[in-house]
């Protein structure tokens, strides 16, 4: 059973004369935006647009207030330590790169170890590989189990290397696996490491408290949680950020600029060089309001309902194989059908108006371990319902019919 009925809030999902109906099942890549978010962004540009933190005039005061309100909303939404510990970034990728470049360069030295996992997205792998290469440190990748869960035994083994940092996701974008952070994070801290959690797939779907979970760095993107593209945040312990060097230099992040050297602003401004994406932050704030109105628990229940419905309906299709764990998974369904290539599946489904993702999902280390080059992936969000699952299933049956013809 699915419980939410919010499709009408999403203009892009409305069929019109020129456009076919869209069954959007690729929210793990990017979510659609409700009218409330689109309106907030538009309203900002229409009535409050100006640069922040500098003008003495009313518009600038208004823009600054909206920007800082958005920071407070983010802090509350993810249970951050305080709003000084929320840095606006372009998204998850930039937030992780910020930590790798700033915290990483000062704390990871030759001979040290950085722990990453085979369940992670390239954006939480490559920055650490780059850092390790620069610093002469080692990268240790934690293995996954056959059903796509993090191998906790292997994590324990990796922690024996006394790594400086462990970077892992909360929810896998490729499989939907939910990592047991309450169990894992104390182990990481006991081993003396700092933890960075990629929250790109958790922030949109799971009520999270960064401070309750004792997360040191938490990165997420606005565009996967109904917000605009190009805005996201790094949520961190303020005392860690205080000690860190700036990531980028420029306006906004300084206290005083001398001829030879400068002093830096306090956090969060220290990490927000240049004109920020104010409209994006305002849109993200509106997305958070929208999600809070529905309630994160209701969203999780809705998605779990659709996931189980889909798992059941798709199990009727012979030759369909689902990747990932049976339990503890978010609304992500990675699958293969017979020996049909995922791109061919995606093309057939696209003709039915169904948008799924086919590919390696920026998780090539995971794909290698699953023994595939790519998978087909359907991912669900607030606007999906039973009928979407049925259209998906019928599309897959059609693909099966087309490709079995030559058998």
């Amino acid at each position, binding site marked *: 059973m699915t419980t939410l009925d919010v499709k009408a809030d999403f203009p892009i999902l409305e069929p019109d004369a020129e456009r076919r109906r869209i069954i959007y099942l690729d929210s793990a890549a990017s979510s659609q935006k409700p009218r409330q978010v689109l309106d907030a962004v538009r309203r900002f540009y229409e009535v409050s647009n100006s640069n922040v933190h500098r003008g003495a005039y009313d518009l600038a005061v208004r823009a600054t207030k909206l920007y800082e309100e958005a920071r407070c909303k983010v802090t509350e939404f993810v249970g951050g330590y305080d709003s000084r510990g929320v840095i606006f970034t372009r998204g998850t990728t930039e937030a992780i790169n910020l930590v790798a470049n700033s915290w990483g360069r000062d704390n990871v030295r030759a001979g040290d170890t950085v722990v990453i996992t085979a369940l992670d997205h390239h954006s939480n792998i490559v920055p650490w590989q780059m850092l390790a290469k620069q610093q002469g440190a080692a990268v240790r990748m934690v293995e996954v189990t056959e059903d796509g869960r993090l191998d906790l035994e292997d994590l324990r083994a990796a922690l024996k290397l006394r790594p400086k940092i462990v970077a892992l996701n909360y929810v896998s974008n490729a499989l939907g696996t939910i990592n047991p952070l309450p169990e894992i994070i104390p182990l990481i801290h006991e081993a003396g490491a700092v933890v960075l959690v990629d929250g790109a797939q958790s922030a949109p779907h799971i009520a999270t408290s960064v401070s309750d979970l004792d997360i040191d760095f938490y990165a997420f993107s606005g565009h996967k949680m109904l917000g605009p593209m190009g805005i996201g945040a790094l949520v961190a312990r303020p005392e860690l950020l205080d000690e860190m060097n700036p990531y980028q230099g420029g306006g906004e992040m300084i206290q005083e600029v001398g001829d030879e050297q400068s002093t830096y602003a306090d956090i969060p401004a220290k990490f927000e060089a240049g004109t920020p994406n104010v409209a994006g932050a305002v849109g993200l704030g509106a997305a958070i309001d929208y999600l809070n109105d529905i309630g994160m628990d209701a969203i999780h229940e809705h998605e779990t309902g659709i996931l189980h419905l889909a798992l059941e309906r798709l199990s009727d299709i012979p030759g369909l194989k689902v990747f990932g764990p049976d339990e503890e998974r978010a609304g992500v369904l990675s699958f293969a059908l017979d020996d049909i290539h995922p*791109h061919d599946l995606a093309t057939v489904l696209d003709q039915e108006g169904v948008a799924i993702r086919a590919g390696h999902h920026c998780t090539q280390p995971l794909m290698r371990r699953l023994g595939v080059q790519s998978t087909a992936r359907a991912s669900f969000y607030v606007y999906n319902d039973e009928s979407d699952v049925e259209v998906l299933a019928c599309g897959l049956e059609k693909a099966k019919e087309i490709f079995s013809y030559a058998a």
Partner: protein
Amino acid sequence: MDVRELYQQVILDHNRRPKNFQLLDGASHRAEGYNPLCGDRIEVYVEMKGDVLTDVSFQGSGCAISKASASLMTEAIKGKSRRHAEELFESFHSMVTARPGEATKKNELGKLAAFDGVREFPARVKCASLSWHVLKAALRCNSETVTTEE
């Protein structure tokens, strides 16, 4: 457009049972192609005698479009002169990238005309043309990996 116009019978057949799908011992030219978007990889082997492509084969993994395209390509160019193969590439490429209503050399392409429907599916043009790009790289005596992102 119906998706069956893309997945024509000849394409489905060659996907299921690709021709010349093996390593070619004694190949004088080879190249590898890679599509970073999907992770698909293909290798094309050519045995040249003088100016003639006396034998051609391919290996790798990919979607139905890319596999069938590679298979049909090897059939089409085997025994042909290098120049003829390059002309086929030009005709094939202009067919799969033609805009609606634009004239193509479909009629000169024989079985390769089965890929005419690809132009209606812009996301799949790279799949159809990958093996041809790899062939071109092989004939340049280029042993590096070509990608669809060139």
